[in-house]
């Protein structure tokens, strides 16, 4: 009986002084090319979230061309992709990661989860390379994050088109704005980053960006885990109306400045969604594809090459609803795609270095702002 | 033949100590005493379901004190007929001996044609007869009986007592009966021991 109690006490004590067997992820340097050790097993495992552009046809074409067998590990959002990379570092579970953007990339780089690919690339546009041009991650599409509004509802009668972000904290917008969470979603994080710049330059209200978020929290802003819940399920101005789970309680949503163009493209040159181009409220987002350290470098590099070929990448606007990462390719003109897409005059200006330095703190500040409301 | 010497057992209080017993081939003895005095425990020690604190048990000059119940060759009839409900009479008998002559065994206990009967439909007396037939099919060297007649009504019990004694005598199977009923003891056994 005493032996038993002694063991129980020991075990509880062990819990309180934890983890002699556990170690942190990585303190070292990225793996050098000479140290590469991997097996080419003829497979390509891609970890991603539900990216529209990775259609079955596109993947099958790659399989036929390259001979590699593709399988997708589908997670919820950019946050889940990052989690996965960190959790499975060195375990060779996946070969390629798609879906981190320039607000998520730095954490991945800091933790050495990627290694250099050996794909042959050319003609990538300067704007796509501007946030990061190193060998560990390759941009494959880009776009501007900004607010969209339902122009049928926001018509000047019941709701007026906002000209500043502070207007969204007023009573008329209570519970009518949907924003994906910066903790889990890349558009969400991009938008949050934009607000840090917006309020640093806001002459009317000398307020902190966190004050605005607190006010939005009090004003019952809808925070979703991912972009699709915000845009598809909550937003009234988009295609979500036609989906089964649609709820439709938000008239303003964080999406892309070219989202109205996408709507127009699919609706045969008509859209009721419009982009809200308020200075410094939009953000230039670049999305990356990267080879995961320890994975099948050959198949990963082959896919990166494939994704950046003109044939495939020029189709980004149509297949993936994003701008191409290559130089010289614009949105199609048909169906009012280009016409209804807005290119912001003055997007938020936040350097990659600033993001790298501050993102962790920003996320904490954001959380506290939302909680303290 | 069975020989017990110096058997002692206590459980919270002393049940029996230094108990000796000798059973000749073909002999039937009865042990009487009030309830709770340890008679059942004594039987259980002899067949191996319990271990005595001290003492030895010899069966045909072999010390069986440390042998498993299954291997001792000592049969037992319990107070209530322990018939397995998922088996028929025949099935129960087969547990005693897979290849034995079921018909003959049933005839011996006076239950001819009972093979297919459902054990739940048997009366108390019939049940004990089946239990006896089953135990005998296993060809025990000694048969122990733990008050098998006490749950039956008087007349039935006495009839059964006579029949069982006759069967055992015919087979020359030594037996020990434990009972609190003096009359049953005297009818059944050659000699009676009091505890």
């Amino acid at each position, binding site marked *: *009986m005493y032996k*038993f109690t002694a063991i129980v006490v020991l075990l509880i004590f*062990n*819990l*309180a002084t*934890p*983890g002699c*067997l*556990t170690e942190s*992820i990585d303190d070292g340097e990225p793996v050098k090319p000479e140290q590469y050790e991997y097996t080419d097993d003829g497979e390509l495992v891609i970890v991603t979230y*539900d990216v*529209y552009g*990775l259609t*079955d046809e596109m*993947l*099958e074409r790659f399989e036929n061309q390259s001979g590699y067998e593709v*399988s*997708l*590990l*589908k*997670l*919820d959002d950019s946050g889940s992709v990052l*989690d*996965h990379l*960190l959790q*499975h570092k060195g*375990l060779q*579970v996946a070969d390629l990661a798609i879906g981190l953007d320039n607000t998520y990339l730095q*954490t991945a780089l800091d933790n050495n989860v990627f290694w250099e690919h050996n794909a042959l690339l050319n003609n990538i546009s300067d704007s796509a390379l501007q946030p990061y041009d190193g060998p560990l991650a390759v941009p494959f599409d880009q776009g501007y994050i900004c607010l969209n509004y339902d122009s049928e509802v926001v018509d000047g009668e019941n709701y007026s088109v906002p000209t500043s972000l502070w207007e969204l904290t007023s009573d008329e917008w209570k519970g009518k704005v949907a924003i994906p969470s910066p*903790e889990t979603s890349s558009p969400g994080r991009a938008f949050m980053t934009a607000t840090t710049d917006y309020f640093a330059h806001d002459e009317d209200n000398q307020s902190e960006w966190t004050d605005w978020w607190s006010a939005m929290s009090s004003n019952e802003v809808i925070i*979703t885990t991912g972009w*699709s*819940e915000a845009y*598809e*399920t909550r937003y009234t101005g988009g295609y979500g109306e036609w*989906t*089964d*789970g*649609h*709820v439709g*309680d938000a008239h303003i949503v964080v999406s892309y400045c070219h989202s109205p163009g996408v709507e127009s493209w699919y609706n*045969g040159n008509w859209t009721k969604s419009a982009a809200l181009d308020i200075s410094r409220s939009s953000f230039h987002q670049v999305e990356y594809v990267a080879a995961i350290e320890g994975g099948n470098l050959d198949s990963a590099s082959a896919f990166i090459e494939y994704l950046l070929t003109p044939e495939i990448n020029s189709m980004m606007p149509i297949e993936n609803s994003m701008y191409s990462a290559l130089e010289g390719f614009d949105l199609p003109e048909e169906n009012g795609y280009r016409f209804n897409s807005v290119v912001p005059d003055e997007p938020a200006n936040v350097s990659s270095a600033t993001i790298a330095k501050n993102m962790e703190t920003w996320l904490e500040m954001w*959380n506290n702002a939302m*909680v303290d409301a | 033949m069975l020989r017990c010497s110096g058997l002692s057992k206590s459980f919270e209080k002393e049940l029996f100590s230094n108990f000796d017993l000798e059973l000749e081939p073909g002999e039937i003895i009865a042990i009487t005493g009030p309830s709770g005095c340890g008679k059942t425990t004594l039987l259980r020690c002899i*067949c*191996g*379901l*319990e271990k005595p604190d001290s003492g030895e048990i010899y069966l045909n000059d072999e010390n069986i004190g440390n042998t498993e119940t*299954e*291997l001792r060759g000592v*049969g*037992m009839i*319990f107070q209530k007929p*322990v018939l*397995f*409900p*998922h088996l028929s009479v025949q099935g129960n008998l087969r*547990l005693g001996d897979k290849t034995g002559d079921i018909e003959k065994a049933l005839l011996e206990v006076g239950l001819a044609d009972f093979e297919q009967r459902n054990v739940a439909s048997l009366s108390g007396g019939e049940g004990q007869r089946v239990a006896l037939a089953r*135990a005998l099919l296993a060809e*025990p060297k000694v048969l122990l009986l733990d008050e098998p007649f006490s749950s039956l009504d008087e007349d039935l019990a006495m009839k059964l007592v006579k029949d069982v004694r006759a069967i055992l005598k015919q087979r020359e199977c030594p037996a020990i009966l434990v009972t609190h009923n003096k009359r049953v003891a005297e009818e059944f056994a050659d000699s009676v021991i009091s505890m």
Partner: protein
Amino acid sequence: MLEMKFKFSNSCAVLAYTLLVILPLWLALDRLIWVAGPNPIDWLSSLERNYIAQGVVQFTFIQALLSTLATLAIGLPIAWQLGRYKWPLQSLTKAILTMPFVMPSIVAAMGFLHIVGRAGLNIRIDESTWFLTLIIAHAWFNMALVIRFCEPVISTLDPRLEEQMRLLPAGSNKIRRFRNLWAPLLAPSIAAAACMTFVFSFTSFALVRWITLGENTLESVMAGIGSSAGIKGYMVSRNEIVLGSSMIQFTILLLSLVLMSWLQQKRQSLLPQVSEDIVKKSNPRGWYVIGPGLIFALSPLIAVFGASFRIRNTDSSGTNYTWETSGWEYAFTSSSSMTSAWDALYNSLGYAALTLIIAVPLGWILAQTILDLEEFNPKMARALDVLTMLPFAISSVMIGLGVMLGMIKIDAEFFYSFWPTPALAHVMITTPFVVRIMLPALRSIDPSYDECGRTLGIPKWKRFIQIQLPMLRGSILVAVIFTLAMSLGEFGASWVVTRNSDWTTLPVMIDSLKSIPYNNSLTAPAACAVSSVLMGITLLLFTWAEKFRPARDGGMF
């Protein structure tokens, strides 16, 4: 006294149980505490300090409470009618009304979603309707508990007791009779049903995830952030949230376990001994209760099945629906981005079989060990008994996290490529149930049977096969079927562990299909198709179990 030989198999069983069930949880806790720090105050306060966890505790408690009240309100009238009066096809009616309990939660989620959603009644307007739907869905699940616990008491009450009551002033009218006769009689059963309903609603995941957008219970929040946990220096607050949530859950579940066992004793004494030769009348007006009850029980299942064939066609002129099988085809074809339902079926059945092979023998031996220990060391027996009940106090998401984080710590590379790994979670969840089923069954076997077999010279292994096994046949079958059903329908733990397309199970696949965004009109019907498959298998298992259930147990299974 029989001398105890602690057999090799017993020690193996206890060791296996400790390794399989206790160890992963231990390691997971260790890892979480390593990241989050050992201060429980931090863990609990993190639930208020973090935006994603804000309001979760309140929501969890409130919805659980309201669900319990709703369940009693719906279940008691049904139990009353069933117990008091005669009904045609009595056992079938009762089976239908109690069947929701064994349905996988994800199937129920799909069912209710399609009833209130745009494809159905289209009343899914705002938070208040979602909340109401959630409460009703919980009541749907748990009314079976009220019926199972209360109906036997109502049904077998000696009519003379009631007749006597009517002749006394304390029973002169219906209300008095209820207060003085029925209420005290039924109180423990109602309390037990309420307690269990509270627990199940408290740890609700699938329903909350799909019906109440944006709201979380402790369980669903843990599932959502679990993938971020266990990494040093990364999202420390999430580890704190997981620890805080599991602490709260553990406490609530433990309290309810204690309460249940106390109530169990009270109920045992009240379960009447009267046989069911009481003549019952039929009650035509009772159809106003039983009829809607049956419809209520069946409607989500019908909705799911129907929705699997209903394809939405949308174009600029509007929306219309057609009836086709393309949803089923979509579900059963595989592509690079999605496994086919065949693979999910194969995985589900494989895991269920594996769980069965491990959990049933393990649980059985543990139950036997407890019984054997009771003879010579009752304290140890009690300790082992409590140990086998430990997983009851741990929710399925926590078990999933236990497997995931615990396995990472032992040997991540091995476990991530080892197909049976998710089955571990299923074993952890089902073994306690097997012990709970086998223990009373083993107890009920009169020891004289075994002793008699020994005196007949039958060796132990033969006694096991020829005596013990046949006598326990009913309970073994219930244990087997229950284990299979639980494994097949398991959602929380599987969702956390099988984020890998090779291992996806039917419930997780349903969730994945329904989660696919964008305007693909086949994903929802496909999700319903897979739900229908899961539903069908569960119904099959349920009908088999009903055949072998011991008649008058008044218990949960």
